[in-house]
């Protein structure tokens, strides 16, 4: 008798637990779903509007399910829309961004790898202090550097050119790339390096034969970090270049402030997407490495 009541109580308890569990699950997914909706809304809006035609956007608003389909906005955004008198679309600025970002990423990553190698495996007296000083560059606000850079770029005859921006981003990126690589190389056992040195391998030989072959994970992280960072940078782009020399971020601001009185949302959306696609592609293809860079860059 007492046993059956116990069982019944137990079953009731289990039912309550089970219901609570299911409610909890629904709550968690509803919460995540709600936020996912907010997070994806801008992406949806921008993709959808780049394929709608303008009259339909004006009639139904930006946030609406597409009821028209048009490919006209893309070529318009790429090569034809006008900002302050020139009608070349965003093509040129896209190339500018590419020709700035790729060399600056490669150079700063290579230098960072070598610096990190020295600072972790060839320490000398004072090298830790030097490393700490270099790291201050990570926190410097760009505004501090604007006037000195303007002067130096002027003196080097590099103002208003993509080459000037490459230089700026290489120097600015050094502290990050060095930090990433140094923290990764610290985990290579010193004995490995010592053994190679006893065997007569020198500085460069150890670097190319031992360190570099095990570097791909950190190099990918660094390249992704630098590429997205430099591609998305705006301040230096708008200060040190103008008009046809500007990177894509500066061109997008010019587009959105100058033309938005006429509200060509279709062309605007396509242009914005063109400017966002390279880092987005990298993110969706190399997400794991992107997140790793993020956590390392933030915490260390």
């Amino acid at each position, binding site marked *: 008798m007492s046993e059956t009541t116990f069982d019944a109580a137990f079953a009731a308890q289990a039912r309550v637990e089970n219901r609570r569990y299911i409610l909890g699950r629904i709550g*968690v*997914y509803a*919460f*995540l779903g709600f936020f*996912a909706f907010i*997070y*994806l*809304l*801008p*992406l949806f809006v921008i993709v959808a509007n780049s394929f709608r035609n303008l009259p339909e956007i*004006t009639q139904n608003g930006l*946030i609406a399910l597409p009821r028209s389909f048009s490919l006209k906005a893309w070529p318009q955004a790429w090569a034809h829309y006008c900002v302050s008198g020139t009608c070349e679309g965003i093509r040129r600025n896209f190339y500018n961004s590419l020709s700035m970002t790729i060399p600056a990423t490669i150079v700063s990553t290579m230098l960072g790898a*070598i*610096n990190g190698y*020295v*600072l972790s495996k*060839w320490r000398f007296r004072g090298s830790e202090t*030097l490393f700490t*000083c*270099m790291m201050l*560059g990570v*926190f*410097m*606000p*760009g*505004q*501090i550097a*604007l*006037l*000195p*850079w303007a002067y130096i770029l002027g003196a080097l005859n590099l103002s208003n050119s993509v080459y000037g921006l490459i230089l700026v981003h*290489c*120097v600015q990126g*050094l502290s990050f790339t*060095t930090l990433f690589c140094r923290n990764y190389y610290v985990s290579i056992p010193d004995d490995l390096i010592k053994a190679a040195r006893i*065997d*007569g*391998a*020198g*500085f*460069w030989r150890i670097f190319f034969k031992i360190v570099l072959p095990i570097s791909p994970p950190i190099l990918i992280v660094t390249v992704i970090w630098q590429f997205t960072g430099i591609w*998305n*940078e*705006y*301040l230096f782009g708008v200060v040190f270049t103008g008009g046809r020399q500007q990177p894509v*971020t500066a061109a997008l601001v010019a587009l*959105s402030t100058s033309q938005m009185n006429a*509200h060509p*949302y279709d062309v*605007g959306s396509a242009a*914005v997407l063109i*400017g966002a696609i390279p880092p*987005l592609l990298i*993110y969706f293809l190399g997400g794991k490495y*992107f*997140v790793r860079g*993020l*956590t390392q860059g*933030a*915490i260390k």
Partner: protein
Amino acid sequence: MTNASLGAGGNAALARTPRWRQRLSDWTPRLVLAPSLIASFVYVFLFTFWTLYISLSNSTLLPTYAFVGIKHYYELWSNKRWEIAYGNLFFFSGIYVVLALAVGLALAIAIDQRVRFESFWRTIFLYPLAVSFVVTGVVWKWIYSPDAGIEFLMRSLGWTDFTFRLTTDRDAAIYAIIATGVWQSSGFAMALFLAGLRSVDPDLIKAAQIDGASRIRIYRKVILPSIAPIFIAVAVVLLQFAIKTFDLVVALTGGGPGISTTFPANYVYDLMFQRGEIAIGAAAAIMMLAALAVVLVPYALWTNWRSRREAASHV
């Protein structure tokens, strides 16, 4: 190449190497590091002192080097627009950091409940970080805009007197920047918190479960305290973002309506490159650096102290 042959070749090479080559190879690491070191030192120290000096000179459109002392700092701090700028910065930083932490933590805890398709959710919440502030700002500006965005949507759904005018309202525009900032960075907080939640010692949690602690209690008493350091680290990074806020404001509100959403970084840019007041601009840039130092120096000291204490307790 086998180890033996590498060793033999190496030793032979060592025997043949002249003294100066040996010397050179001793110095190789330092020589290799030198260019980067010089560049970084110029960037960090020389640039800072340069800007500091300009802020103390009487430069206007072009740099001159006549020393006038702290006159421009005085001018800056008595300037109405600067008052608005740092007022905005304080207001924005407070709400933005708290909200981004809260949303990030909530998302991390939700994802930590052994949900399905975890990487799918994570990918959604993190993608804003891959997108520039410029793109973020432009898109949200459209979404906030009364004649095509949310207000338009609600009205066309039948709610005809619905008003939602963040970016065109002097007092509300700052909330548009806060909301967009939170949208952009809470994924970052989520990623770091999630990593933290995963690194909590499972034995600790198990022990609490055996003691009959509820889920919520376990979170409050066991898990969250042990990720407190991550909490502080994320808050510091977010504060840094806040102090450097520039592109987002340019793209979203352009500092307007009027000058209501001016931030320090925007004002620096304005002074230096629109008004030709580079000395005051430099003073404002130095103030930004000071603000960063106020956040970062205590944090650096604290982490240093903690790692020392930990090292001591492990011995």
